[in-house]
């Protein structure tokens, strides 16, 4: 399970509240992920947190048949990268849909939800058409 560092703690605190937080540069406006206190676009350290919409599309994935430790009961399971509506990409799992090539179509619309795993609330994604409750801040 992830162990937050001081720089990433706000992200995990946001997840615990049901919010997907990203960072944005106050100078050039670029939103980015993963959390760090410097803008990768322009080098500014004047950056802020904001709540993302939680909307995303499926960018790429694999379906893993050799589970990591702790995932033995889940295999085969998809490890995916999603493109967030705000621009950055992140790794995730896809839930609420069979993890098969037939059901996981690239560029399908997704929505973030949060799964409790141990002490961590983990952002995962589910098909937007499934009518899942919206989580993650502003509409």
């Amino acid at each position, binding site marked *: 399970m992830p162990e*937050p560092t001081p720089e990433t703690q706000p992200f995990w605190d946001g997840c615990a509240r049901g919010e997907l937080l990203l960072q944005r540069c106050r100078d050039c406006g670029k939103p980015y992920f993963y959390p760090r206190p410097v803008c990768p676009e322009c080098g500014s350290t004047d950056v802020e947190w904001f709540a993302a919409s939680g909307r995303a599309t499926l960018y790429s994935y*694999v379906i893993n048949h050799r589970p*990591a430790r702790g*995932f033995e009961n889940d295999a085969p399971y998809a490890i995916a990268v999603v493109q967030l509506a705000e621009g950055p990409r992140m*790794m995730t799992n896809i839930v609420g849909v069979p993890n098969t090539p037939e059901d996981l179509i690239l*560029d399908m619309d997704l929505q973030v939800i949060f799964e409790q795993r141990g002490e961590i609330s983990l952002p995962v994604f589910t098909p937007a058409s499934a009518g899942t409750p919206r989580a993650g801040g502003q509409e």
Partner: protein
Amino acid sequence: MSQDQGVIIAGAAETNEIGKLPGKSTLQLHIESAVNAVADAGLRLRDIDGIATVNSPGPVQVAHALGITPSWMDGTAVGGTSFLLHVRHAAAAIRAGYARTVLITHGESGRSRIGATPFPRGNSSIPGQFEAPYGTAGPTTAFTLPVLRYMKEYGLTHEQLAYVAVAQRKWAAQNPRAMFRELITVEDVLASRLVAYPFHLLECCLVTDGGGALVVTSAHRAADFPKPAVHVLGTGESAETPLISQMVDFTESQANRLAGKAALAEAGITTADVRHLMIYDAFAHLPIYGLEALGFCAKGEAGAFIADGNTEPGGRLPLNTNGGGLSYTHTGMYGMFAIQEGVRQVRGEAPAQVPSVDISVILGNGGMFATSGALVLGRHPR
């Protein structure tokens, strides 16, 4: 570049055996390859004054075990391409006068894990926080992640991806040291078990034990060694991202492109000059990404280029002629073996020798599309 600024590979050798070697530790594989490479150069260990290798065991341990007191050392450890970077850094050190004769070693008990460093699992690292929670299981789940996007964007088929393994097995069939030598078909590849869809077992590299080492020195000494000098004509290196999810574009490797461009530019060559090519192939898509990054194929065309037979025996661009990581060997940090095959081809002593290899290009991958190194090796100085 004048002869006095030039750098050569004067010695190159692998461990006596590669494959399953439960009787040898990681350090012993370094020692054995070092002794073999120094002997290949007609030198003694006391002639070595520079050392480069990855942690661990690292340059201090390897130098000490061999009785070498270095005046220059490099512990650059950026994945399996590190040894290509060591050649580049050694060339700079030799030109600067920091060292005269550099030994670069690789040894890895990748399969048997004898005296091997445990894989680090830092739950507070960036990958530990933002990838591991989703069930990543090393390279098979991360290095492979971009390819479905490539398939959608450019129409690469499952059969074309499988054919990369088929083509390389044809080279391995001519190499007695290759672990897998029986010819295979696309159907065989697609019938092998799924590791991480869309990748089947035969589209993933081997996991083996072994090592290799190089002796690098000034080109003005080219006539002093028993084997023909292999000139280091160009070098490049770059890095992109430690997280596969943060690649700029899943359909291309920026690090491959930048490292390759730098190496070809330094050598003053174009792709048309290249007679032999090695592309680090931990998985079947890497030769496709590499061919496009180096400019041998336009974007989206490398899968068909390989499936049309261009890179296999008899083709116009011999690629991964030892059988590659898919069929020859893959200790975990394969880059050293790609260099070794480039040296053998330029010297004219490879098991599956390509005629008249004046120029060989080697493109390395480190991590999961994290880093890259590139070398242009030649039979003649520039």
